[in-house]
């Protein structure tokens, strides 16, 4: 890669700058690009491939073992079951990209869910529901979060937390949309507290979030009450994870999504070709676009078929969780890949010192990812609470967080920071939901589900470690 040029040792004989770097290429043939891909795989850059293969294997195994697994009803159900974990995992990817961890995301989402449920059940009267002392403490915590966010100049975080405070204090009557907004705002406020402790105070994220994991679990217990369960009797809240778009709406949604995807992808490729910058070969781009379009259309078609188990009712249409997850995925990917903020997250995760020297406000970035994580986790909380139809003292506890971390890692996000994408969370979350669903259909007890999930997570972590070693060996 380096050549010793004999005529470059003194000033006069040095070669003049030429019109580009001779070896730099912006175009590759499809064959070269595929060859590169194989070389990258061999070099240990596996990306989402192991998770996709694993998912395929699980599908095949469960289809063979259970005649109910590969039915339309079950597949639609699977989407609803996995969505909560997937969404929480998407938020966690932001934190994992910095090499940090948020163990409290699960119980923090539980707090958001329990506030939502309290607000709904008591028709907005949180003061009465919590009791004066608890209510004042709760408001005080949100005010503190707002102040901390303002100190860190996280305007969006401060804004959402303030909105949450207003909703709490004003005691607006129950309304499912306001309820969801309130849950999200509570998530934001929690994230501001976590982020402050990690980024400003400088306590290791593991310790802070472990402590908060316990604390938030206690808060959920306090809000819901020992042995109590808050039922979510509301059509909108129930529909989030259990309802579906009407058939025409499903097709409209599919059409908009597909057209938007093709327009963006193809437009970007054309722009790159015109500008003469590095781009993938045209046949590959077309192939990728075509494959996604085909999958989307087939998926929509399957989900618009009647999947009702009996003849009296008709259940058809794309479940609401699909557009919810898709919108979050697209927005989040846009932020990570195409904005300065996202670039700075990757930079801080890759080399914190380099980012600091490049003038990036590392403290602010670190604090902000915890805010993003908790906010998105609250959205996940809305989904899983909707799926269950109630909020109990265990909300967000138990396996929620570990499944979410597992989802991100199984999908290919590195725990060491700097590497990972949001779609990893979606793929990994689907793997975990599939295991849960498939073993459940086979009538396996919870013990087996936990053991199998653990083994799969170990497998994924081993793939990450081995590919990392391999990558170090070939210098990539």
């Amino acid at each position, binding site marked *: 890669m380096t050549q010793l040029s004999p005529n470059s040792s003194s000033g006069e004989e040095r070669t003049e700058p030429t019109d580009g770097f001779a070896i730099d290429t912006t175009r590759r043939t499809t064959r070269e690009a595929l060859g590169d891909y194989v070389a990258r795989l061999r070099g240990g850059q596996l990306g989402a491939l192991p998770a996709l293969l694993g998912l395929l294997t699980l599908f095949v195994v469960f289809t063979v073992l259970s005649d109910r697994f590969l039915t339309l009803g079950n597949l639609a159900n699977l989407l609803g079951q996995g969505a909560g974990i997937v969404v929480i995992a998407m938020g966690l990817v932001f934190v994992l990209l910095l090499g940090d961890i948020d163990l409290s995301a699960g119980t923090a989402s539980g707090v958001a869910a329990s506030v939502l449920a309290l607000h709904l059940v008591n028709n907005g009267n949180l003061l009465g529901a919590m009791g004066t002392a608890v209510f004042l403490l709760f408001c005080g915590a949100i005010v503190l979060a707002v102040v901390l966010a303002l100190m860190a100049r996280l305007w969006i975080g401060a804004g959402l937390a303030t909105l949450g405070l207003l909703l709490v204090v004003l005691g607006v009557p129950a309304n499912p949309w306001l309820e969801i907004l309130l849950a999200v705002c509570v998530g934001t406020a929690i994230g501001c507290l976590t982020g402050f402790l990690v980024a400003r105070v400088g306590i290791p994220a593991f310790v802070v979030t472990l402590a908060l994991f316990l604390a938030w679990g206690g808060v959920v217990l306090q809000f819901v009450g020992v042995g109590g369960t808050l039922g979510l009797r509301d059509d909108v809240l129930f529909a989030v994870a259990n309802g579906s778009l009407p058939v025409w709406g499903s097709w409209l949604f599919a059409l908009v999504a597909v057209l938007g995807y093709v327009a963006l992808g193809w437009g970007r490729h054309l722009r790159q070709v015109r500008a003469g910058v590095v781009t993938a070969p045209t046949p590959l781009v077309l192939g990728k676009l075509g494959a996604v379009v085909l999958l989307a259309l087939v998926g929509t078609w399957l989900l618009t078929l009647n999947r009702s188990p009996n003849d009296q009712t008709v259940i058809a249409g794309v479940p609401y969780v699909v557009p919810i997850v898709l919108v979050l995925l697209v927005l989040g990917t846009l932020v990570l890949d195409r904005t300065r903020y996202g670039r*700075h997250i990757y930079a801080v995760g890759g080399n914190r010192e380099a980012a600091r020297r490049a003038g990036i406000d590392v403290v602010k970035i670190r604090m902000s990812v915890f805010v993003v994580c908790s906010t998105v986790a609250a959205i996940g909380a809305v989904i899983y609470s909707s799926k269950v139809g109630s909020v109990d003292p265990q909300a967000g506890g138990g396996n929620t967080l570990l499944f979410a971390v597992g989802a991100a890692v199984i999908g290919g996000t590195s725990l060491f920071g700097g590497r990972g994408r949001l779609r990893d969370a979606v793929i990994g979350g689907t793997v975990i939901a599939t295991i849960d669903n498939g073993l459940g259909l086979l009538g396996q007890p919870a013990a087996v589900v936990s053991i199998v999930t653990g083994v799969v997570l170990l497998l994924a972590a081993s793939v990450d470690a081995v590919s990392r070693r391999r990558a170090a060996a070939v210098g990539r």
Partner: protein
Amino acid sequence: MNDQRAGSPADPTEPVRPVLRLSGVNKSFGPVHVLHDVDLAVRPGEVTALVGDNGAGKSTLVKCIAGIHPVDGGSIHFDGEPVRITSPKDAADLGIEVVYQDLALADNLDIVQNMFLGRERTRGGLLDETDMERAARDTLASLSVRTVASVRTPVSALSGGQRQTVAIAKAVLWNSRVVLLDEPTAALGVAQTRQVLDLVRRLAERGLGVVLISHNMNDVFEVADRIATLYLGRLVAELPTRDTTHAQVVELITAGRSGDLGLPRAENVAL
């Protein structure tokens, strides 16, 4: 940028006006007086080598210029104007760029992303990748960098020399006026050292003022126009390379003086 490209390398006996001039700079860390009345001039189109033994204050001096440590006393002039540099941002705003020994690059990002790190170009709120990639390619091409397969190669896949090249090219991309290089060849092999030294020379040819810290006398004598020697925090001599010998520089580094040059008999110093 200034239009010094044609006039360099300047005749050291008739120096061009310095772009950066330090006079009487002092710096202490608590009771430890690290820099004593340091005078240093960095001229456009010249490579000034900063040499000295370990602990002589080279890195401290660079960090003072880069704004990481504020100076305690003395003055800094940039383009003849007195300036105060109290933060890395001040230095960057003036056009002073530092290439650190331990390479401030993020491994997981590609060359373009690293070159624009912290100063990304955006259009409509989104990153303008096309524009950045072109600018990065043009910069590397203008520096005759021909060893990188693609500007979209992740930095983790680059060799030490290539990384150093990217770090230096970053300084050029930002139209810097002064580039400080802290031991750029310390960890490199022969061929890679060659590349980086060529690049250093090219920076000067483009009219930048270059300060090169190095322990390697061969490197220094090959690329530097002037050699400034620090000895125990004092700048004992700043001499044109052509009037200096290896032995003199080594004596200056180790003893602070060499014949008429250097520390104690200031009245005898013949420049």
